[in-house]
């Protein structure tokens, strides 16, 4: 199994989620992160002093899927999350050695 970790723009979450559901991906885990990269943040002003927002809100979507699904998932995410504008984010793929469903104790791909 593989973990597909996607850093995307927050307003793209819906599209990614919809695409995954349509692909029959049953689950995912999402969290709020802040990103630092080529995309530069805006400057804010407080009582006469300006300052730069270095860290930009992003959403991290983690999907654990079977090895076969990886390619499809990656390209779907890439398609859905892309706006063509800087800061669209990344997709990282890594190996998952074992997966267990807590409720049933099932393991392996059945647990996803």
């Amino acid at each position: 199994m593989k973990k597909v970790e996607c850093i995307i723009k927050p307003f793209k979450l819906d599209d990614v989620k919809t695409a995954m559901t349509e692909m029959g991906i049953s689950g995912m885990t999402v969290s709020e992160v802040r990103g630092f990269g080529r995309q530069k943040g805006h400057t804010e002003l407080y009582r006469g002093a300006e300052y730069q927002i270095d860290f930009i809100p992003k959403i991290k979507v983690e999907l654990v899927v079977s090895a076969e699904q990886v390619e499809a998932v990656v390209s779907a995410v890439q398609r859905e999350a892309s706006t063509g504008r800087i800061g669209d984010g990344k997709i990282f793929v890594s190996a998952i050695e074992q997966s267990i469903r807590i409720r049933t104790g099932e393991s392996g791909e059945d647990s996803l």
Partner: protein
Amino acid sequence: MKKFTILLAGLLLLPTLALAEDAPVSEISYVLNTFSFLVMGILVMWMAAGFGMLESGLVRSKNVATICLKNISLFGIAGILFYLVGYNLMYAGVDGGFMGSFGLWGADDAAAAAGDYSAGYSAGSDWFFQMVFCGAACSVVSGCVAERIKLWSFLAFCVVLCGIIYPIQGSWGWGGGWLSEMGFSDYAGSTIVHSVGGWAALTGAIILGARKGKYSKSGQVNPLPGSNIPLATLGTFILWMGWYGFNGGSVLALGDAASAIEMSNVMVNTNMAACGGMIAAMIMVQVLYKKVDVTMALNGALAGLVSITAGPATPSLGAATLIGGVGGILAVLAVPFFDKLKIDDVVGALSVHLVCGIWGTLAVPITDGEASFVTQFIGVIATGAFVIITSSIVWLALKYTIGIRVSEEEEMLGCDACEIGMEAYPDFQRVSFGGSSGVSGYTASSVTRD
């Protein structure tokens, strides 16, 4: 001229005041009338804070700092414009006509200083009490057009509303203009204050369009939940409190027992209407949706208050409760109605101030024999027509000059970051995907879908 007739009624009821030579008591009446204006006026000013908190609680966290700024600055604008233009345009030499005269306002208490208290109260106290009402009309607008309007364009609209639109129509009913000659009866402003704000808000909401993501192509409504319910509740409590002054002060006198009794009845009825509106709204939402939406209960209380404002002196407690109760039900029904029309009213200002402002005005004859349904109807129509036309002109003029709506990206990021350059809650982690996924925080998901 409502302002004076009522007071004179009071004077006649009080022999000691009718007799010119009986100075002492008459002076005390003058003092009491003045003090009543000041104390009640402070309560009405406080309503500006109530609107501010209500709206801060009902917008999303990314637009809170902006709505705070709008709510406090519009009160500043109201004060300045009512001094520069408003007061005289509303009250100076209307004589049954369609408007007063232009010119700065200045206090003239020479007569009273010379021992002639027939004015009834000090000029300043009267100006103060009238000015705070003007601010209320703007507050109604700000809630309805929130989260997408440009700061300075909104403030520019407030300048015209306080300086021209509000005072001119106000002169008709309160300044001794043609409506008052006809016998139009609007005790504390269901029409003259609340529906005026409502009509201006309606034209603004239509010309601005809905917030991105509020309505999906499929016509489905995506709620954009308010970010701070206790603030919205506090705002409603403040408005309820301030309304005692709004209606109670509109007795315009305290110098004799008759006025004191009337003020008591007005305050009691104001309270009963708020109770009726809130409880009716709660029962209504429980029945319709099986859950009690707090924001609807808050709207219900305000709906009751707006409904009684046109005639709080004549009903019995029971009648006042019912008038308010009908208002509460109307507000609950009006919210989905405006959504069906895709008119995006962020805080329910149209349902509360426009719909119930009209209802309250038309309800006056039910308990007030002297009021005529026809005249009330004419007043509602005339005011509505005038405000729709004038405010549309202003909104469109702004739209095609400096623009009235922030860019789609600014709207997505929030007015706070883009227009004010700061966050309302910088220390707190905000969720960019809310209940209805992608909606709260960032609505653009819906944007891209639609």
